[in-house]
């Protein structure tokens, strides 16, 4: 699933969580300077401190069942907390804080066996009872905690029982093949200590996890400082516990240009980016040896035009198709994304189950688009002007104007509406829009996107009401055969392509850039998972900071 993401505060987090940020900032792959090779890397060094520049503050804090975390919040959460499962290089969810996560024969009952001897930062032990309480809190069944979005995401859970000191049994309403993926939930479903779970006054800022770092201080808007957890349960190859660093500082720098400046000036040791302009600047810095970059579009989010299909004219597939056919996406890539970032073929990024190189999404065809519009107008009268809502950012406005010109060529009048981000959210919630810029659907297991598309879901912002999509979502959720499952989600991808429920732009490439002295975030230096499998290749949900080290 995906949970809520923006802001310095609540709204930015919310925005990104709900995947609002505009098609603009989509990701992609740098032409140069990306994916630093570290063959010449020195052996890991213990000690030291790094400052990690984040794109936003997490104003709501980290009371995880209630938090609305964006990427910046997830980065902190993954340093402080552990999730029961974690994805590996193949996109499979393997045990992490759990020692095993096993289903019964028909996938209606899952038994989570916990690792022995793990303690929280306050010294309390990890037990089945605490994990049960956590899962209950996430699904809105724990007194004193008020989760919201996770309630819908984990709606398929029927019961949660501590069936032994270290065993938790979860039963589901329908067979749930991808349940382990939901125990990760883009890194948001960390296990918090009982004391934090019951903390009515400061659950958001007195963080107690089992993770590699313990919180030392949080000066909201300035920095969150976390120090090494000397009792961490995961062992590094040198036989000592992770992490390598003594300290990690997360500092929000909202302006991406300033994040580049801070990196160049040495004020931060590493930072993350997802906008084309920063990529261009960082490529140049990488060429000069000032920074090194690692890019990934694996399991990425997708930037797209969200279409409100519940009202005219976009309740008619012909108008949606005409919208898609009006745009030359290669030209869009050159003009808007400076030639960077891969054009999206559908919601599933490369690496994810359901990904197709060609999902049947319409290519530019002005004549056919005109014909479809004419056919629609013949039946329904003249096509009314439609509005495109975008936030005031430079790139989002460029996109708006680009789209306006593109659809004008097929006879669609696009009125541009500039709205603040919070209003954009309101409009998405209330359905008070025609089309708007969005970014969402980070890859993982395709079933995690169920909640965004199911016709009766409260977060189905596109108002998609397609019995075929509903059927495929339900089938995919309970299908245990990987091959059949893959076919189901590929069909779903094609259904999106033919029905144009959304107009795809590009996949978001995330980039981690660092000083040359920082190691431990590239594919050849990332820590392996506890089961020995290779690390996850995506960056949309952060990476494990326990493996970072610095040589100076």
């Amino acid at each position, binding site marked *: 699933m995906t949970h809520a993401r923006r802001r310095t505060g*609540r709204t930015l987090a919310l925005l990104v969580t709900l995947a609002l940020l505009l098609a603009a900032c989509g990701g992609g792959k740098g032409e140069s300077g990306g994916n630093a090779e570290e063959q010449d890397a020195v052996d890991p060094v213990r000690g030291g401190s790094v400052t990690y520049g984040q794109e936003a503050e997490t104003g709501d804090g980290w009371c995880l069942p209630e938090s609305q975390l964006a990427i910046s919040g997830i980065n902190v959460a993954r340093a402080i907390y552990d999730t029961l499962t974690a994805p590996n290089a193949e996109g499979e969810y393997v045990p992490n804080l759990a020692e095993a996560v096993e289903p019964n024969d028909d996938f209606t009952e899952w038994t989570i066996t916990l690792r022995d001897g793990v303690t929280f930062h306050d010294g309390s032990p990890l037990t089945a009872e605490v994990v049960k309480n956590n899962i209950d809190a996430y699904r809105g069944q724990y007194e004193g905690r008020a989760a919201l979005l996770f309630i819908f995401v984990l709606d398929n859970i029927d019961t949660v029982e501590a069936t032994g000191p270290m065993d938790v049994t979860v039963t589901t309403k329908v067979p749930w093949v991808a349940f382990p993926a939901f125990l990760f939930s883009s890194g948001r479903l960390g296990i918090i200590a009982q004391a934090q779970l019951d*903390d009515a006054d400061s659950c958001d800022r007195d963080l107690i996890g089992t993770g590699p770092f313990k919180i030392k201080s949080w000066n909201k808007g300035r920095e969150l400082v976390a120090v090494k957890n000397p009792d961490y349960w995961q062992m590094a190859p040198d036989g000592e516990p992770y992490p390598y660093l003594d300290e990690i500082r997360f500092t929000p720098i909202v*302006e991406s240009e300033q994040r580049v400046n801070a990196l160049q000036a040495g004020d931060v040791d590493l930072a993350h980016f997802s906008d084309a302009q920063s990529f261009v600047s960082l490529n140049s810095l990488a060429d000069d040896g000032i920074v090194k970059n690692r890019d990934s579009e694996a399991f990425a989010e997708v930037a797209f035009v969200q279409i409100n299909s519940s009202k005219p004219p976009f309740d008619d597939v012909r108008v949606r198709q005409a919208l898609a056919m009006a745009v030359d996406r290669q030209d869009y890539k050159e003009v808007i994304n400076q030639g960077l970032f891969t054009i999206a073929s559908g919601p599933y990024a490369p690496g994810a189950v359901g990904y197709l190189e060609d999902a049947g999404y319409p290519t530019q065809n002005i004549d056919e688009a005109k014909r479809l519009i004419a056919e629609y107008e013949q039946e329904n009268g003249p096509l009314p002007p439609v509005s495109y809502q975008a936030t005031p950012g430079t790139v989002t406005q460029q996109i708006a104007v680009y789209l306006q010109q593109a659809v004008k060529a097929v006879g669609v009048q696009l009125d541009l509406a500039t709205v603040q981000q919070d209003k954009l959210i309101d409009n998405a919630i209330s359905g008070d829009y025609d089309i708007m810029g969005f970014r969402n659907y980070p890859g993982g297991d395709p079933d995690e996107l169920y909640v965004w598309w199911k016709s009766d879901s409260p977060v189905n912002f596109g108002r998609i009401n397609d019995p075929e999509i509903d059927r495929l979502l339900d089938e995919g959720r309970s299908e245990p055969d990987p091959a059949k499952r893959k076919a189901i989600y590929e069909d779903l991808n094609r259904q999106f392509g033919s029905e144009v429920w959304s107009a795809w732009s590009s996949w978001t490439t995330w980039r981690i850039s660092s000083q040359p002295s920082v190691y431990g975030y590239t594919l050849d230096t990332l820590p392996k998972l506890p089961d020995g499998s290779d690390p996850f290749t995506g960056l949309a949900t952060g990476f494990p900071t326990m493996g970072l080290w610095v040589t100076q």
Partner: protein
Amino acid sequence: MSSNTLSILKLIGRKLAQLVVVLFVVTLFTFLLVRLLPGDPVDLLVPVSTDTTDESDRAIIEARRQQITDDLDLNDPLPKQYITWIGGFVTGDLGNEYTVSSTIPVSDAVTSALPPTTQLILYSQILAVLLALPVGVISAYRQGGIFDRIANVSAFGSLSLPGFAIGLLLAYWVGVRLNPSLPTWINIPPQGYTPFPGLNPANWSFEPRTPDSVPDHFFGMLLPALSLALGQFAVYMRLLRSDMIQTLQEDFILMAKSKGISNGRVLWRHALRPSSLTLLTVAGLSVGTLIGNAVVIEVVFGIPGMGTLIASSIIGREFITLQSSVAIVAIAFVVINALLDILYSVLDPRIRNVRAA
């Protein structure tokens, strides 16, 4: 008690009475303005659609919306909401930030956000005045000369550039490009905030890049303060120049010159003081503008001040935080201007006497 002291006390009393009225209007206006913002805070706090066909989902959503509405007293009539808030406000209780996970007093957020903003505005005012004084005086003295023309062009240039654009340019060219070539004890970062390490000199460090470093604080604030100051400098310089030109034509200046007093002394001791009254007033009035500009500058430079707090409150529709923060800024603005008004009278007895009469 001398008549002078009495008239000043009367003036202060009158100002305080006006202040109460102004503050009532300001807080009421702030309160109403916040309520008139588009959108419903509940939508933001419960970011899911209510038109779901799933009954149990709808029940959960409605219950959560109701809980937040109750917590924020959004169903109370506006007068009651205002009285509740202002009652707490005047006793120092600014209310609580609304989060689902915790209770955070707004006073905590304000206490931590006020120092950076106060410092930013103070430093930018000092920089603006320090730049404007010599340039304004010399421009007036050399009216029409090359220095005057260059100063005027520079002033118009800095006026025409928005503060955030200046900020980004300074961040790159000074913070990134120039900083590495400066002596090691000078560290001008492109962004970030280093707090001033308290009033106890025993806690001060003069080493750069160390905790409690005093130089890091001042050099760290240099670029944001300069970004704000350049626009103000232009206004101050132009005002001072124009006032100085007038003053230099006064009889008492001619008298001073005829007595053989040096040009420098005439300019700095005799002409500057009467010419600085407008500058002083405008500097006070500029506090509001500076606070407005600080919102952007604080975001650009990553300074966790009142501007950032207000901006995040607007985006997050944190009613209580927003109205309390804006009210504090408005009160500061009104109080500063009232103090300046009093100072104005002290500096120029003619004004005090006219008002007293």
